[in-house]
Structures are given as structure tokens and as C-alpha cells.
């Protein structure tokens, strides 16, 4: 039932080779570096697409690196969930490829390293290997945060690096705890050993420590103080990429840990608490924020909190809701960031923007309606899946999660409509707000088109997501695919 697919390494190996090659050529032909990088990303994307097709038709795939079978060596494990986020990462890296005067060798190399690291993060089935790929992703994003080469960018990157390294060290302590208890690092192996070896306070502490590492990228409270600083100071494309996709990769890894290593109630409660704090703190801060950039930085914290809330509902339904929310956010939030990058400054200064840039304003309206959850936009379906999962598995914690999610939605609606009202304010003749060049609006328009397409294909999309969630929630089947290969 599981196929062995050594080619799963390509989504990591191709960008890695590109990253190693790029600096050699970039010295002579700086203007070609961007083009070369894009070709590498396209190559990586098409390989990933071919692999995804094979996995969709033939089921999850496993590859043992170096031919050392599962618990001894490192394995890559690719199911539909992994492939979905792998493709999303590839698309996002292509869409938000660095542009402008600063975009010579450095940022392009970092972008390719980020792609390789993120791909490995999502595909790896080994605890320490996940840590290593997480560090690649982290180091690349510290560099990208500084890639605007502004004073604020350097300072924000340094503070981000310090927080992130503390998180990574805590994560390593968690790995040491788990290894001391179980003697293995393989996730599939752990899913068999952990239920009786990693119980009680040690298991809970190990999960909290791992989450402390992942939480920095996943913008979980209280590890997200870097969010407004970095998103404010980094180039808009980098903010869009980090908030849109990289944060979701960390969430998906956290989900893998919950399903395979910490299936008990404790881990779900931790996620619930982190989610509640994230939604409340994020939405309130977003409501008080002065500029669109700040608003979206904080609301991204809130949306990742909602994903954590969904993952805290045990069972496949909760996972499906979390995937839908994460995916929806991965489409909408980067588009918001691209708009906010042009509309800097206090929201009040944008009065009458509809006369200057009608297309951008209407895009903003559609994105807002979707993220609030107005039918028939995809955001409604994501929140609907959340409620459905909650009603299927009712408990006190779940009702709190539902209440927090709805309260968050109300606040969200309040600040988004406030901004929309300003755009449509009467009495302004226009001409006072920034206009968009087509190249600036194109990535956001593309994402808007994806959103509308998703609205049309909502039924097959929903079925596909719930199939994905079933597959990703069955730890026993995953362990069997990795370990019982009868070789």
C-alpha cells in the first residue's frame, strides 16, 4: 500500500544545488542570478508536481535515505498533506521572488535555501532531521528579514534571530528528553513507543519544548514579539512569504507531532491555550493598530491561533478544519501584505482610495469578505468546517474554542470594514493615495484569482481536504507504511 519513491529527495536537492551554484555565477552576472533562481524554482515546482501526481494516484510514499531502513536511518514520508504544502511553498517562493535593486545574489541564494529547508521540513519523518531543516529555514528567514538592508531590517533580524535561537535550543532540549525516554528519533517508531513511554509530565513538557521551537515560526503566543517588527521592516515580499506559507509549515510539523508522538489530551490542551491566547491577543492588537501593515501582522497571529484551535479538536474533522483555515490564510494573507506594502501609513490617509485604484480596493473587499467568512467565499467554508468539527466532538474546551473563534471573527470584521469604509469615504476627490503599477498588483491579483477559483471548485476541494485529513490523522497506518515494509 505504500510506495517507495526515492525521488522525493528532488524537491530538496534541486533548490540546494541551485543555492550552491548561484553565488559562483552571481559574482560575474548579477542580473542573471534572479533568472537562474527562478528557473531552479520552476524546475523544483514541476518535479514536486510530478511527485504529487504520483502520490495522489498511488498513495503515500516513503524513502529511506542512504538505504538505511526506517528506525535506523532518516526517512522521508510524503502524503497528500505534505505535497499540498510543498506545492504551496514552491508557488509562494516563485510569486514572491525578490525584486528590485537589492535583489542580487544574496537574497536569491537565501530564497533557494529557504525553499530547500522548507521542503525538507515538510517531508522529513525524523525528529532531529526536522530540527536541522527547521534551522535552515530559520537562518534563511533571518537573512531575508534583513535583505531590505535598512537599519530597521538589521535590528529586527537580530532580535528575531535571538528569539528564534532560544526557541531552537528549547526544541533541542525537548528532543533530548524524548530520546532519553524512547531511544529513537523516527516519528513512525515514536508513534508506537511514545504512547506508553512518553506519558505524564515528561511527555507534556517535551511537547511544550518542541512547540516552543516551532512556535517562533508559527507565530504562537508568547513567541511572536518579532512579528510586527520583522513584517514592518522586511521587504513586503518577504513578509508575505513568511506569514503566508513558512508559518504554516511550522504548524503542519506541530500537527505531525501531535498526531504521531503526543496523541494524548495534554498536547491538545496546550494547543487550545496557545490558540485562544493567539486569537485574542492578535485580533485586539490588530484592531488597535494604526497602519494596514501592522494590522495584518497582528491578524496573522490571530489566524494562526485559529489554526491551532482547529488542530486542538481531536480527530480528522479538526485536522481538516485546520488545513482549510491554513490554506485559505496562505492565499489571502500574502495578497493583503502586497496591498499593504503600497498603502503604507495611517489608514486614515487612504480616504478615497477607491477612486485612485479601484481594482486594488475591490480585491481588498473580496479578500476581507472571505477572511471574515461570508458565504459563498472559501473562508466561510473553512470556518464552517471548524464548527462542524466542534459539533462532532463537543467538550468544554471545544466550546471555548468556538466562542473565541467567533469573537475573533467579530473583531476582524470590525477592523476590516473600518478600513473599507475609509477607502470608500465620500468628499475625497482621489489623487492623494498611492496608485499601483501592474507589476505591484499582479501577485495579489493572482492570489485573488486563486481564491475565486477555489470558490467555484469548493466541493471537490472540500472532499480532497477531508481525505487528506483522514490520511494525516491515522498514525497507525503511517507507522505501518514506514516501518513494516517487508524488505
Amino acid at each position, binding site marked *: 500500500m505504500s510506495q517507495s519513491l526515492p525521488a522525493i529527495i528532488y524537491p530538496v536537492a534541486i533548490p540546494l544545488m541551485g543555492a550552491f551554484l548561484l553565488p559562483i555565477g552571481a559574482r560575474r552576472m548579477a542580473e542573471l542570478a534572479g533568472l537562474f533562481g527562478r528557473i531552479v524554482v520552476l524546475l523544483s515546482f514541476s518535479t514536486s508536481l510530478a511527485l504529487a501526481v504520483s502520490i495522489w494516484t498511488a498513495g503515500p510514499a516513503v524513502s529511506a535515505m542512504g538505504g538505511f531502513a526506517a528506525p535506523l536511518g532518516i526517512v522521508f514520508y510524503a502524503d497528500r498533506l505534505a505535497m499540498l504544502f510543498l506545492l504551496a511553498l514552491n508557488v509562494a517562493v516563485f510569486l514572491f521572488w525578490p525584486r528590485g535593486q537589492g535583489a542580487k545574489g544574496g537574497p536569491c541564494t537565501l530564497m533557494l535555501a529557504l525553499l530547500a529547508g522548507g521542503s525538507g521540513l515538510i517531508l522529513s519523518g525524523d525528529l*532531529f532531521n526536522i530540527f*536541522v531543516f527547521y*534551522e535552515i529555514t530559520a*537562518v534563511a528567514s*533571518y*537573512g531575508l528579514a*534583513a535583505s531590505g538592508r*535598512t*537599519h*530597521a531590517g*538589521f*535590528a*529586527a*533580524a*537580530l*532580535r528575531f*534571530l*535571538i528569539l528564534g*535561537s*532560544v526557541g531552537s*535550543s528549547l526544541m*533541542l*532540549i525537548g*528532543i*533530548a528528553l524524548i*530520546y*532519553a525516554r524512547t531511544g529513537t*528519533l523516527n516519528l513512525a517508531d515514536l508513534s508506537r513507543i511514545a504512547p506508553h513511554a512518553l506519558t505524564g509530565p515528561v511527555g507534556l513538557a517535551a511537547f511544550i519544548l518542541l512547540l516552543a521551537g516551532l512556535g517562533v515560526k508559527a507565530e504562537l503566543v508568547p513567541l511572536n514579539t518579532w512579528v*510586527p*517588527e520583522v513584517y*514592518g*521592516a522586511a521587504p513586503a515580499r518577504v513578509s508575505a512569504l513568511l506569514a503566508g506559507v513558512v508559518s504554516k509549515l511550522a504548524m503542519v510539523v506541530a500537527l505531525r507531532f501531535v498526531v504521531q508522538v503526543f496523541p494524548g489530551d495534554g498536547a491538545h490542551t496546550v494547543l487550545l491555550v496557545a490558540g485562544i491566547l493567539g486569537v485574542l491577543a492578535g485580533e485586539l492588537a490588530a484592531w488597535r493598530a*494604526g*497602519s494596514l*501593515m*501592522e494590522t495584518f501582522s497582528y491578524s496573522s497571529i490571530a489566524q494562526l491561533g485559529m489554526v491551532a484551535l482547529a488542530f486542538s479538536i481531536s480527530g480528522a474533522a479538526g485536522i481538516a478544519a485546520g488545513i482549510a483555515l491554513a490554506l485559505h490564510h496562505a492565499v489571502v494573507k500574502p495578497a493583503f501584505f502586497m496591498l499593504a506594502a503600497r498603502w*503604507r*501609513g*495611517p489608514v486614515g*490617509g487612504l480616504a478615497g482610495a477607491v477612486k485612485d485604484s479601484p481594482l486594488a480596493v475591490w480585491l481588498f473587499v473580496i479578500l476581507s469578505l472571505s477572511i471574515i467568512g461570508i458565504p459563498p467565499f472559501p473562508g466561510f467554508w473553512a470556518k464552517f468546517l471548524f464548527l462542524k468539527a466542534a459539533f462532532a466532538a463537543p467538550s468544554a474546551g471545544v466550546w471555548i474554542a468556538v466562542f473565541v473563534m467567533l469573537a475573533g471573527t467579530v473583531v476582524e470584521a470590525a477592523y476590516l470594514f473600518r478600513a473599507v469604509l475609509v477607502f470608500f469615504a465620500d468628499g475625497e476627490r482621489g489623487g492623494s493615495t498611492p496608485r499601483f503599477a501592474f507589476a505591484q498588483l499582479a501577485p495579489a491579483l493572482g492570489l485573488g484569482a486563486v481564491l475565486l477559483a477555489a470558490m467555484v471548485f469548493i466541493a471537490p476541494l472540500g472532499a480532497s481536504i477531508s481525505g487528506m485529513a483522514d490520511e494525516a490523522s491515522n498514525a497507525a497506518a503511517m507507522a505501518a507504511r514506514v516501518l513494516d515494509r517487508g524488505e
Partner: protein
Amino acid sequence: MTGTLLYGGAIGLVIIGLYAIVARRHLMRNIFGLAVMESGVNLLLASVGYRPGGHAPILVAGAAPGPLVDPIPQALVLTAIVIGFGVLALALALVVRVRQAYGTLDNRAVARRLRAENGEARS
């Protein structure tokens, strides 16, 4: 006894490092704290794999001289040491730039300036 000492030493380093990050304001000092904390984590990881009476995991002409200590944590620590150095180098490069830009390395002062600059970019 040996175990208590090693675990205590490792956790002690982690806590001293965290103190330097949380309670001290100078960014350079925070980076020292990071280095100390990483050392503690590495010691913890290496201690986990120790066996009393075990030999170093190196064979002599293809045969083990006796029971070995666990080689996996050693490989992990090696990896972690090199990762720590890479992060340290990047942090120091950023420190050079932040110092040039703001003339100070006081974390709170830097955070204040950063907020102000993000605000200016807005208006």
C-alpha cells in the same frame, strides 16, 4: 552522582544563558547567553547517551573493544555545534550593522528605535 553533576551542569548552563538573554539588555551579552545556552543543551544531549563502562564508539580493526556508549547523541551534538556556530556568525554580522546604524547595542533602545522607524516608514 556523576549523572546529577552532568545534568545539573547542563541545566545550569541553560539557565545562566537564559538569564543573560532575558535579564541583560546588551545585545552582545544576549549573544553570549545564546552561546552558553547552546553549550548546555549540547552537554545534556551528550550525557543522555552515556553508559557507565562504555567505550568510545570507535572500533579497533573492525571489532568493538567492549560495550559502547550510544553513538547517536554524539552525532547529534556534532551537528548542533556546527549549527550553533553558523547562527553565531550571522548574529555577529547583524550586531556589527546594528551598532553602525544605531550607535548602541542596548536591546531596549534598539527596540524603541526600531518601532519609531517602522512608524516613520508608515507616515
